[in-house]
C-alpha cells in the first residue's frame, strides 16, 4: 500500500521487529506453564524479551533484511530496534500491572469477601493478610536495593548522592507535568 505521499509498506527489518515484539506476549505465556515455566515474574519477563530478540535476529537472517548492508538498511535496522524497545515497554507496563498492580490487588482482595469490610480490614488483607506494613517494607526494600535511601533508627533518609539527586529530578519532573498537587 504505497500512497502518493506516504509509503506505508514496512521494510523487512521493520516487519520482523513488529512480529518479534508481538511475540513477547506469546513467550510470556510459554514461560508461564509446563516445562519452560520460569517461576519469578520479573525473570520470566526478561526471558520473554530475550527470546523475542533471538527471534528478531533469526527473522532478519531468514529474510535477508540487511543484505546488501548500506545506509538505507541501517536506517531500517534502527527503526526495527525502536519498535522492539517500544514493544518491551508496552508489554512491561501490562505485565507489571498484572503481577504487581496495587489497585488491581486491592480489588481482588475485596472480591474474596462475602460481606462488607471496614477499611482497616481491607488494609490488613492487602499483601496476603499481612497489612500495609508488609507493603511498606516491600517498597522500602526497593529504595534500599537501588541505593536511594537508608534507615537510621526509626528514620528513613535519602542517600547523599543517588537519593538526593533522584529526589531533585522527581521534583523537577513533577513540576514539569504539574503533578505537585497530586503528591
Amino acid at each position, binding site marked *: 500500500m504505497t500512497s502518493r*505521499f*506516504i509509503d506505508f509498506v514496512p*521494510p523487512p527489518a*521493520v516487519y520482523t521487529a513488529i512480529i518479534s515484539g508481538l511475540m513477547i506476549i506469546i513467550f510470556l*505465556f510459554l514461560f*508461564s*506453564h509446563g516445562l519452560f515455566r520460569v*517461576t519469578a*515474574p*520479573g*525473570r520470566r519477563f526478561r526471558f520473554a524479551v530475550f527470546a523475542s530478540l533471538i527471534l528478531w535476529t533469526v527473522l532478519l537472517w531468514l529474510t535477508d533484511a540487511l543484505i546488501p548492508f548500506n545506509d538505507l538498511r541501517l536506517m531500517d535496522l*534502527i*527503526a526495527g530496534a*525502536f*519498535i522492539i*524497545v*517500544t514493544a518491551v*515497554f*508496552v508489554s512491561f*507496563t501490562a505485565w507489571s500491572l*498484572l*503481577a*504487581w*498492580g*496495587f*489497585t*488491581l490487588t*486491592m*480489588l*481482588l482482595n*475485596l*472480591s474474596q*469477601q462475602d460481606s*462488607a*469490610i*471496614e*477499611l482497616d*480490614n*481491607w*488494609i490488613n488483607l*492487602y499483601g*496476603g493478610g499481612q497489612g500495609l506494613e508488609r*507493603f*511498606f517494607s*516491600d517498597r522500602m*526494600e526497593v529504595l534500599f536495593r537501588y541505593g536511594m*535511601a537508608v*534507615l537510621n533508627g*526509626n*528514620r*528513613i*533518609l*535519602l542517600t547523599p548522592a543517588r537519593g*538526593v539527586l533522584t*529526589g531533585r529530578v*522527581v*521534583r523537577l519532573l513533577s513540576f514539569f*507535568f*504539574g503533578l505537585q498537587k497530586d*503528591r
Partner: protein
Amino acid sequence: MLTSYVIGIIAFAIHVVLVPVLLRFSWKISPVAIHVISAFAVHVATTVTGAIFFGAIPYWQGAALYWLGFMLYIFVFSSLYKSISLKIIHNLSHQPKYSAHLDVIFEKCIKASFTARVDVLVESSLAERRHDGFVITRAGIKTADRIRWMQRLFGIERSGLYFVSRDNGSD
C-alpha cells in the same frame, strides 16, 4: 528516509511540549488518556503535514521513533503519577536533611495511597462504600474475574508485592 526520522523527532517534540500544557487544564478524562489522545492527534497531523511539505516519505522510520518516544514519555509520567517508591523519594526530598520518621512516611505515602486507590475503585463503580464498610459491585466482580483469568493464563499466583512475587522464585 532521514526526512521520516526528522518528522518523527519534530512530532515527538510537539507532543512533549503539548502534554504538560493540556494536563494543566481540568478534564473529565484521565491524564493517561490525555497523553494518548495528544499522541495520536500529533502523529496524524505531523505525518500528513510532513508528506505535504516533503513529498513521498517512508512512514515506519519516523513512526517507530515517535512511538518509542511516546512510550518513554508516558512511562516516566506514569511512574511519577503512581509509583509509591517515587512518592516516598519526593516526600523525603522536601524534608529537612532529606530525612523523616518512618511513621510519617507510612501515613503520607502508604496509607494515603491506599485510600486514594479506594476512592478510584469507588469512583469507577468497582467498589461501593456503605455504612458497614466496602463491598464489591457487580462490575467489580466481573473485572476481578477477568483479572484472575489473565493471571491464570500467565501463571501469576499472587499479585501486589515485588518481593512476595519474587519469593516464588528468586528474581
